[in-house]
């Protein structure tokens, strides 16, 4: 299980590292066109080859990682910032009208086909990274609200919470001081899973032209560009695809590993 965490951690570190390093250094300038040098296969000076404009694919992938990272990170942030307080509130007022409204609202958002709505939002409000973030972020809210409420409900029955209530602490204070720290592990694990889904969603939206707009490089856009040239330059499609797969795989492995590592019952079973 530690192996999952290790492999996942390395893959994530490569992804985040590439995005951060791209701010100060890339092998070539990702925006420089070099038409005579287009469609170069991987190897040589251009490690991962060049695209139809002769741009270095490795440099584009590094800068594109920034877009994926930013969109997925902010989308998860939106989900956490709104979902966690809603979940805590619903659990604190369990069985009340507030709880019912929050949970039914959650069900409703879950019922929407997320991709269709994301496409609708970006199509109506204009394509771009910001709208993609909002579209992906909205569907993260019920995920975090539900998981927080579920975990918080059982905690509210525990003795240490009863003790806090007897001590006269308000429901809001108990939620922040005692419930939240006890559900953090769960939320971190869910966060990595939503993060990987966010990267897939961003790639999908960019691929259909509704995500980050040119000249901002993004992995989904690189795949869209590659589609018509897949027969003459397959590496243009292969490289961004591998980047997405390895990053999502890394995040999922890390999520699995973290869940096992942070769960004390499983840790006891291991030793």
């Amino acid at each position, binding site marked *: 299980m530690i192996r999952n965490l290790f492999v996942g951690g390395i893959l994530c570190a490569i992804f985040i590292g590439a995005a951060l390093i791209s701010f100060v250094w890339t092998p070539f300038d990702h925006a420089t066109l070099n038409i005579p040098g287009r469609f170069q296969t991987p190897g040589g000076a251009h490690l991962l080859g060049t695209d139809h404009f002769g741009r270095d694919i490795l440099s584009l992938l590094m800068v594109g990682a920034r877009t994926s990272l930013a969109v997925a990170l902010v989308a998860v942030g939106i989900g956490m910032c709104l979902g966690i307080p809603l979940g805590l509130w619903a659990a604190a007022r369990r069985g009340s009208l507030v709880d019912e409204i929050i949970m039914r609202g959650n069900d409703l958002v879950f019922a*929407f086909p997320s*991709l269709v709505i994301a496409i609708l939002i970006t199509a109506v409000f204009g394509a771009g990274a910001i709208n993609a973030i909002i579209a992906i972020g909205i569907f993260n809210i019920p995920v975090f609200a539900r998981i927080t409420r579920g975990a918080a409900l059982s905690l509210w029955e525990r003795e240490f919470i009863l003790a806090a209530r007897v001590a006269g602490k308000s429901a809001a204070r108990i939620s922040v001081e005692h419930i939240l720290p006890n559900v953090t592990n769960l939320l971190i694990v869910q966060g990595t899973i939503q993060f990987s889904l966010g990267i897939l969603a961003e790639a999908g939206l960019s691929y259909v032209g509704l995500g980050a707009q040119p000249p901002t490089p993004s992995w989904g856009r690189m*795949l869209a560009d590659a589609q018509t040239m897949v027969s003459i330059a397959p590496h243009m499609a292969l490289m961004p695809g591998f980047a997405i797969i390895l990053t999502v795989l890394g995040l999922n492995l890390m999520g699995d590993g973290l869940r096992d590592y942070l769960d004390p019952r499983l840790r006891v079973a291991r030793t």
Partner: protein
Amino acid sequence: MRTAHTLCRMLRYTLKRILSLVISLAVASLVIFTVIEIAPGDPASFMLGINAQPETLAALRTELGLDVTKVERYVTWVTGMLTGDFGTSYTYRTPVTDMVTQRMWVSLPLALYALTLSTLIAFPAGIYAAARRGQAGDIGVMGATQLGVAIPNFWFAMMLVLLFAIKLRWFAAGGFAGWDKGLLAGLHSLTLPAIALALPQAAILARVMRSALLDVLGEDFMRTARAKGLTARQALWRHGLRNAMIPVLTIIGLQFSFLLAGGIIIEQVFYLPGLGRLIFQSISARDLIVVESVTMLLVFAVIFVNFCVDLAYAAVDPRLRARA
């Protein structure tokens, strides 16, 4: 007496679910209508271009039903849908119902085809992994499913085109032959899209199948089955599978609605004339009535399938009814 009591509970649960279904659909229609309404761009001006005369514009707005208040338009739209009338497309001037029905003949078979493939792959894989828990076979299958979940389906679709359409020339790279060319020709052109859609779903389903089986294998009745002399394989086939099917069927139900809505991008990759492409074409043509209606239809499909799954689940699991 007991049966009557159970029936009564089931009825109460069903009524409660129907009520929540109706509320969900009402809110969904309101949300979709509002989002589309605040969209910039007037369909009539878009159709006539920038040099349109004000009188022509006003006449077209009247013809399209755009000159009434928003509330009236919402009511007309919703009551129309209840009677199966989705309005008339702004650009094609044909009933939206006809367009949707026509596109359904691509999207629905595609979703069903993908679901069949996903089940055919996931069942053996999940059973194989559960039966060899912790062994090399299990680790191999689980590794493959991790990879399957991480692959974006549109990228996988491109790789399928590269291999089977461009290199091997077994399939066309895109387009739809049409059902009038025969069932086989139709299925042939949906094969690559269906495989691309099915792969991530199969990976998820195989994981669910495995964990459901592992849960069941630890139950007392499985030990009893072994104690009465059944081999591990016999116990698995006769008692294990049937009991593991409950969570698996739930996921299959949810996957169907996901596949119907999730085909949007795959339809773009393969230029299939389905609902997804209809949405994209209508968005770029500002044909808002089509966008509204197709989105509502997809939302309805998802909510309705979830509703059926809930009912089916309650029918087999008495604990859920008790909570109603």
